[in-house]
């Protein structure tokens, strides 16, 4: 089962390596990871997407908690939360499909952030399903490249 794990860590040199080392050293899988500063610049927030059975997820959260630099670990599956991911998609549609691409982008509340004679670059934010759906629709129209940020997530009410 897929879990979104939110980890608050000390914003220190080497911490990301400790976290990724924990996963690789124990054979746990990271599907995506994103890291950024928080309100308190001494603290970073990581959002890790991983999967495994209950026993593995339990180990992952416990092992993360055990790291000296980790302040807090929350398995967001257990709390009400919202998740978002951003994707940048570069499409190069045939002339007759250009309008269609723009229309799809609009339906998905995307923004064209760059264009060239042959390509559009679309920025879309949303949950995973939305992004997967968009990629699915655009793929036959000629996606050249896309880049995803990986998910970030936040709980709906403050987690104590």
């Amino acid at each position, binding site marked *: 089962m897929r879990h979104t794990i939110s980890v608050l860590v000390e914003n220190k040199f080497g911490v990301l*390596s400790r976290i990724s080392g924990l996963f690789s050293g124990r054979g746990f899988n990271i599907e995506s990871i994103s890291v950024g500063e928080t309100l308190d610049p001494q603290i970073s927030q990581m959002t890790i997407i991983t999967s495994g059975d209950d026993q593995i997820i339990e180990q992952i959260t416990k092992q993360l908690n055990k790291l*000296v630099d980790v302040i807090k670990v929350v398995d967001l599956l257990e709390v009400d939360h919202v998740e978002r991911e951003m994707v940048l998609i570069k499409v190069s549609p045939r002339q007759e499909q250009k309008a269609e691409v723009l229309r799809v982008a609009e339906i998905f509340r995307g923004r064209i952030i760059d264009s060239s004679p042959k390509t559009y670059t679309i920025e879309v934010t949303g949950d995973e399903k939305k992004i997967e759906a968009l990629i699915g629709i655009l793929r036959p129209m000629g996606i050249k490249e896309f880049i995803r940020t990986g998910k970030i997530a936040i709980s709906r009410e403050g987690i104590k």
Partner: protein
Amino acid sequence: MKNMKNTKKMTGAKIILESLKKENVSTVFGYPGGVVLGIFDELYDDKDLKLILTRHEQGAVHMADGYARVTGEPGVALVTSGPGATNTVTGIANAYMDSIPMVVLTGQVPTALIGNDAFQEADIVGITRPCTKYNYLVKDVKDLAYTIKEAFHIARTGRPGPVLIDLPKDITTASCDFVWPDKVDIRSYRPTMQGNKVVMKQAAVAAAAAKKPVIIAGGGVVASGAYKELLEFAKLLNAPVTTTMMALGAFPASNPLSLGMPGMHGTYYANMAIQNSDMLIGVGVRFEDRVTGKTSTFAPHAKIIQIDIDPTSIRKNVRVDIPVVGDIKNVLRDMNTILKDEIKPKWDEVSKSWLKQIDDWKSQHPLSYSLKNDVIKPQFVVEKLYEITKGNAIITTEVGQNQMWAAQFYRYEQPRHWVSSGGLGTMGFGFPAAIGAQLAKPDALVIDIAGDGSIQMNIQEIATAVINKLPVKVAILNNQYLGMVRQWQELFYGERYSHTFLDSHMIPDFVKVAEAYGAVGLRATKPSEVEPVIREAIKVKQPVFMDFICDWKEKVYPMVPAGGSLDEMLLPEPEAKEEKKKKLKAVK
């Protein structure tokens, strides 16, 4: 937070030494080199810090480890950058696996050169990240004192472990005020010390209701110093106690409730008790595979309570019904109170038939071996060591058959008298660990029970023992083979002894090696010579190698083949007719 009174400007090198003294360190094991010259120079006329110069950095770390295991205080090692640092890795990993408190100081190239592949640069912080509890690269001399304080705090609290501090040369030569912090507070590191009351109650009630309880005590009992509490817990429950290899001595071997060691080479009765138990109480034990055998058939009828300070140990390897996170000493003390107050003890009757069953197993298959007149049995040597020292020696071991026989045939009555590489199984650990233990306990009799293979992995440390007048004794159970590997080859690889014969009845001549270093060498080739050799070794106040030429064919039994269930034990082969069978009385 910081106390600014009475500060003095000092170099980083001096700050390091002063900080160590603040942490009550009196002995450092080390080896010099380019980038730590400044620290060594400060040590040159320091009266309060003794540096023990080893002959290999691995030796230094194992000595610090042995020192820590017999005292409970962090051992300290100091080495240079690059090869000095990488030579410590095995020792650090060894301490990490066995949760031994330790602080390792490594020199590093100057900060300006880090990352340049400078001469003798190694990313030791990166290399040791997965085998330290925590590690640091100090980048500012002002952080030095606090970092050292924090390192000791992390090493000794919670589940103990090794901490490494990497010290670039320019940090040790720069100066600043020496400010020793009063305390450390790490918001992201707060080990759970007290058990949850509700869960402890639940655990105590369940334990008391069990008909066939077994306590399995691990190294956590030693780390937490919970001996009295364990003894009381066992008595209150009237439950038998099996001690893993890491916990030998944490529960007295002579206690009628003692089952000895469980697992691959555990006693028949410990393994049978686990497999038939209806309530297994794990205390400071991580249920490693050498202890559990096949996990799917481990303790199939038992509910499992697991008490540990490290939440990751719980449910890592076996299913657990009631987990209790906390320091063992606190948790057992609280659970004992609950047991005394809340539960009316009437389980004496119930436990009688269970204890009777265990006694039957003890007499059916006690630890045993066949004694011979013409050739020395390694178990006989260990038994004699036990008899002659009356169980009072500090025993360290190497790895292999020697280690298992030392675990089985010496009886450990007191904690911190057994020093052995458990998790990593590091050949070459026992001898330097014995030297470290001897330094910590100058008046104790310290004996390394060794194999002819393992002893050669850090044999150079005999120089350290001789020069520092440390009278450690090494009992080499010389079977001329990498015996444990040979045993597997005999049992599972059709007696194809691929590269396990060492020729060590001849090469080296251990007696001459000892003598070449100015130590004493003694040899026994017949059973009748065993006792005189041991007595002589104990009499001389010098380091001694005792070379016991043993039966190369001897195997360690019982044995649960790797991946087998605990109750599928191979037991000693029926002895040939001319052999006089000797059975040790099971401890009752």
